[in-house]
């Protein structure tokens, strides 16, 4: 069941799910904010400002211009039937109320009665033209000027004038500026914050993915990650999950193959050994029969070959198991000299049968190496087997200890014709391959010193 890993999204220029698009939106927002957001801010400032402050006049000292004008008209109307000193008194009061204001009044005869404070350019006696010129000059200028005729309904010809600096009626323009700066600054901070959050989010998801890849289950395969989004990182996560699925499938296949191989080895072993067993049984039976010398000779050769074949099968299967990692070594501190003695004791009858001289000179002290017991025995067995098979004509096997290249080494010596000239050395190959594998796996070292006089094999502990 093959499942295609999702292809990476072919990047359209703008796709809602793309990280590029998302970031473009953020950048675009930050560019648009000056022409679009600024006016919005201004308008909303005014609207909200008015709403917040309720009556804008509250900000002003005397209310706005029309309030002052209404006040001035009312004051003029109150002057009905008042004497000049009374009017003067009242105007003094008003001056006290509005200290920034300039006040004067002109009676019905056209004479200027009071100037608070005294002002330049005010005629003592007003001609109609003066009045017109004054009015004309005062329209829409600073100071703001109010002219009110006195008396009820402001019907008299005497009039009073109030002049006030216009800025008293205007809201100070400087109030808005820091607000704008604050808003721009806020927007900038917002933009930076959003960018940082955006990238942090990406970074966090990537780190999450990374840690998910590092985490492994008991088979050394990472667990699948949860898919949250469908953007590029989401695609990466999906691809990652697909890869894990593939790993699981291949792992299962590998286990199946391993089991198959193991049962194949077992069956092969059985199938190969069964005929060999039958053959050796019948060969044994033949020995009991009357045979010529030639027949006996042939029989012993065949018997030899049958046992050789059996060993070969054993080594071949062991080697297969080792290379497929099925041969588990569990090293422990063991006295290797004792193991060597026990192994040699087992081999002794065979050496005797081959009429070999056996020289065992192992000290009684313990040499504790960290080795796998069965593995170490196998090394010795294969080496001894090799000597019996290929160097027995030397008639000697020696087992002793020696200092070799500064290390204490176990020495196995024979007086055969040397490895390179040994007959059928090729056949012994796999046994020695197993020896070398075990030597390496157990952290030991092996050196061979071979000549036509014989072979010496040094085994030493590599660690230390």
């Amino acid at each position, binding site marked *: 069941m093959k499942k295609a890993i999702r292809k990476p999204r072919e990047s359209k220029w703008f796709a809602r799910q793309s990280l590029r698009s998302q970031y473009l939106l953020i950048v675009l927002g930050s560019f648009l904010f000056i022409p679009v957001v600024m006016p919005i801010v201004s308008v909303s400032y005014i609207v909200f400002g008015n709403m917040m402050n309720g009556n804008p006049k509250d900000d002003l000292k005397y209310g706005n211009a029309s309030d002052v004008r209404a006040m001035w008209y009312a004051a003029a109307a109150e002057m009905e039937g008042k004497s000049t000193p009374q009017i003067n008194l009242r105007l003094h009061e008003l001056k006290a109320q509005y200290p920034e204001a300039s006040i004067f009044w002109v009676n019905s005869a056209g004479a200027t009665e009071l100037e608070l404070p005294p002002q330049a350019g005010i005629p003592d006696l007003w001609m109609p033209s003066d009045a017109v010129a004054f009015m004309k000059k005062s329209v829409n200028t600073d100071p703001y000027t109010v002219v009110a005729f006195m008396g009820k309904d402001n019907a008299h010809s005497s009039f009073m004038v109030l002049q006030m600096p216009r800025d008293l009626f205007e809201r100070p323009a400087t109030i808005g500026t820091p607000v704008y700066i604050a808003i721009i600054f806020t927007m900038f901070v917002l933009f930076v914050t959003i960018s940082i959050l955006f990238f942090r989010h990406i970074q966090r998801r990537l780190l999450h993915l990374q840690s998910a890849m590092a985490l492994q289950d008991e088979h050394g395969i990472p667990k699948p990650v949860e898919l949250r989004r469908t953007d590029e990182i989401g695609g990466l996560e999906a691809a990652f999950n697909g890869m894990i699925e593939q790993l699981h499938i291949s792992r299962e296949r590998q286990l199946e193959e391993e089991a198959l191989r*193991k049962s194949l*080895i*077992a069956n092969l*072993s*059985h*199938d*190969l*050994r*069964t005929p*060999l*067993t*039958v*053959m*050796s*049984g*019948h060969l*044994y*039976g033949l020995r009991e029969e009357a045979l010529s010398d030639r027949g006996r000779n042939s029989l012993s050769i065949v018997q030899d070959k*049958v*046992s050789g074949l*059996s060993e070969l*099968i*054993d080594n071949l*299967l*062991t080697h297969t*198991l080792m290379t497929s990692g*099925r*041969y*588990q070594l569990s090293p422990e501190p063991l006295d290797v000299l*004792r193991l060597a*003695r*026990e192994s*040699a*004791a*087992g081999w*002794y*009858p065979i050496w005797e049968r081959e009429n070999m001289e*056996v*020289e*065992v*000179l*192992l*000290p*009684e*002290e*313990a040499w504790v190496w960290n080795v796998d017991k*069965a593995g170490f025995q196998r090394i010795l067995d294969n080496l001894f087997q090799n000597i019996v098979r290929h160097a027995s004509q030397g008639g000697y096997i020696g*087992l002793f200890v020696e200092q070799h290249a500064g290390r204490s080494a176990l020495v196995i010596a024979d007086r055969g014709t040397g490895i390179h000239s040994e007959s059928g050395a090729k056949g012994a190959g796999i046994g020695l391959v197993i020896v070398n594998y075990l030597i390496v796996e157990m952290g030991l070292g092996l050196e061979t010193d071979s000549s036509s006089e014989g072979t010496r094999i040094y085994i030493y502990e590599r660690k230390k």
Partner: protein
Amino acid sequence: MITTLLYIEDDQEIGSFVVEHLRAHQYEVKWLRSGDRATEEVENCSLIILDVMLPGLDGFTVGQRLKKVAPSIPILMLSARTAIDDKLQGLQFADDYVTKPFHPDELIARIEVLLRRSSTFSNVPTNVKHLLVYEAENRIVNTDNEEEITLSGKQFHIFMYLIRHLGQIMTKEQIYESVWGESYLEGDKTLMVHIRYLREKIERDPASPEIIETIRGLGYRIRG
């Protein structure tokens, strides 16, 4: 007395020559083609020879069942399988293990060792040179003068240990640890002293021993 062996083997050719060979060595053989009825047939048998690769129940399962039914009867595993872990699995209940192809004489030798070791063994004496050893009765008779040889406790244990491993070389460590039940210390002369006294009692000429052989550098051996 005839010793009966239970032999479980599915291969006709191997089975027939093994049975023939065992009968030639005076053993009575019950041969089963599968392990299914093994537990019923085990009665009156002194030893079980068990093949690993069997139709139906495999040899390991059969062996474990047999060990439950008759724990005192030794089991010799006979197998064409060589996988190392098989060997370990087998030895948890099996008393010995022989891989095919085996030498028929080796099979007989292993059977004899196992029978001698097991308590069900009849009191047929073991003959070593001029000695007759009755293991079941802890008796050693010198055939030269028909006198019984009396050994001290340790001497007897050493001798019996070597008799039980007839033909095998046992190292000093193995003998010492088996007899004294503690680990052997280097340079310990105790064992050598005991062997010297033992030889004085059993050998015709203690100066050139025939029964207990010294294998230089390795250990001692009694040959059958």
